[in-house]
């Protein structure tokens, strides 16, 4: 697997942390309760090992928001992933606790989409800043599936081997909601991304 050294990893994490902090600030504006976001660790892996790294059962129902980003050095599909249960908790947090949310409604999907939009945009913005790249993104889309089907559709789409950068333990402190930011890159794109990243971080 691809590796960046410890100093580089720390720098990357720090940059992501700053933009995540900004994302948290804008989320805080929308709800009364204070929320904080943290990004404590970073992993490079492939789709096959992703589930075990995420400690997710294949049967687990998942919900995620996806946005595609295209820049000169980074072409990626960014995902904000939750278990279905946590995604519902998150919706509750924004829509109001008095409403009983037991399954993801279209309105709930919209809420999650926007939350994803804010967080993913923030992550990509900080990467764009490091890469000194202009990265434009699409409108967020909401998906739900079982754990085992998480990357299946994508495999058919592009046969190229993919690499995932996973930000584990992405936490919304209040309510103990845990999310994962995943960047899906193809192998071609990874080389130029890492080169540029390492160059700019050092």
């Amino acid at each position: 697997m691809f590796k960046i050294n410890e100093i580089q990893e720390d720098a990357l994490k720090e940059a992501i942390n700053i933009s995540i902090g900004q994302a948290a600030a804008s989320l805080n504006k929308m709800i009364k309760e204070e929320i904080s976001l943290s990004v404590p660790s970073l992993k490079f892996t492939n789709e096959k090992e992703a589930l075990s790294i995420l400690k997710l059962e294949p049967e687990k129902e998942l919900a995620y928001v996806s946005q595609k980003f295209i820049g000169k050095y980074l072409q990626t599909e960014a995902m904000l992933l939750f278990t279905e249960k946590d995604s519902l908790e998150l919706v509750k947090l924004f829509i109001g606790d008095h409403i009983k949310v037991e399954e993801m409604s279209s309105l709930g999907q919209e809420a999650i989409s926007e939350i994803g939009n804010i967080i993913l945009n923030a992550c990509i913005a900080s990467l764009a800043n490091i890469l000194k790249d202009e990265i434009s993104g699409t409108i967020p889309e909401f998906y739900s599936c079982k754990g085992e089907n998480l990357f299946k559709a994508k495999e058919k789409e592009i046969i190229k081997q993919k690499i995932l950068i996973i930000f584990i333990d992405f936490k919304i402190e209040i309510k103990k909601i845990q999310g994962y930011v995943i960047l899906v890159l193809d192998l071609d794109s990874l080389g130029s991304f890492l080169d540029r990243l390492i160059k700019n971080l050092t």
Partner: protein
Amino acid sequence: MLENILLNQLTNCIKSGIVILNSKKKILFWNQWIENTAGITSKNALGKNIFLLFPNLKGSRLEYAIENSLTLKQSGFISHTINSNMLPLLEKNLRTGEEKKIIHNIRIYPLKNEMDKVIVFLHITDETSYVEKENILKQKAEDEKRLNLKLMQEITERLNIEKKLRLSASIIEKTTEGVLITDKNAIIEFVNPAFTEITGFTNLEAIGRKVSILKSGKHKSEYYDKMWQCLNNNKSWRGEFINKKPQGSLYVVESSIFTILNDSNEITHYVNIFHDITLRKEHEEKLKKLSITDSLTGLNNRRYFLDTFERIYNSCFRNKEYLSLAFLDVDFFKLYNDTYGHQKGDLCLKKIAEVIEKMIKRPDDVKARYGGEEFVVIMPYTDSKGSKRIMEEIRKEILNLKIPHEKSKVEKYVSISIGVVTIVPGPETLKKDLLNKADEAMYKAKKEGRNRVVSI
């Protein structure tokens, strides 16, 4: 130019808002829909900074997203679900004239113009009917849940009631208290096993019949009338019944009766809970009898005599009736005992008592053993002649028993001396005097030779 006209026509057909901002956030394009819903004509909107038109949106998520779009070329999605600060868009109902807030989402796309400058395209979509539909569905689901909850509560409640009922039913089955439930017309509806045990009527024999099948006839109808009256006024009654078994024997029950009322406070049922107190009653009777009876002769004892004498005296006093009192004393009884022994003496007294018992038959008369060999008889409503005659008969009858008394100085057999006194109690007479006079008469009979009746 043609393109512009086409674009205008096209965007004006669309039932959503299309707004384009330049890099300074000034409005470049403002379609028909947004004109109508924002109430701002494109003439008034074009060229103006969007946040000058909507100053409330300064600092909002929309501003932040537009900023990001312009500087970072990021796309944004702003949903009404989590943003309260959105565009003030209204839809006017053409028929009623009512204005309704338009719930909307905004999508923000960075575009580049012909000079490669970033411009921002806002796509505003009306979500109102969608939200309404969703709310209806949600409401339906909520209602259904509430209904289910209510049903659950009702079921739980019913189960609890059933549990209690089962418990009560088993208690009623097992208890030794008779339970009898009748409808408002006193027709028996329910009886428990103890009912059958006590009354002798099986449930088949009892149910459907009037509760009066239990009656013995020992109570006057007023007794029952009072009971019903009490039940209808106080809703409960406690008391005793002497009832009759179908085989004919009598028994006594102690009953608690209460009523069951419906919501309109009308009596629907009577519940009678009772137990058999026949044995207790019998014991009580026995005890009572023992306390007033002379154990040797079976006649009443001195205490009873003194109690009743007072009562009878007062009764005769009130009614101005004759009252006769007799003292009867066995002649030479000490000698009899000395000769034949105490056992024979007791037997002798018993036989004399039997005679007195046999001869004095009227229920109001009182005959008692006064002490030792002395007996006393009270005869209300009896004049001197009558009382003397009956005492004479008793004297003869005792002599006729022919109980040998060889040491007697008057007869070969046991004889008796009787003093009898008759008065009509009045203000000038005294109870004590009557007793003394009777005693006096008896001594007179002894003095005059015994085996005789002396009447004063």
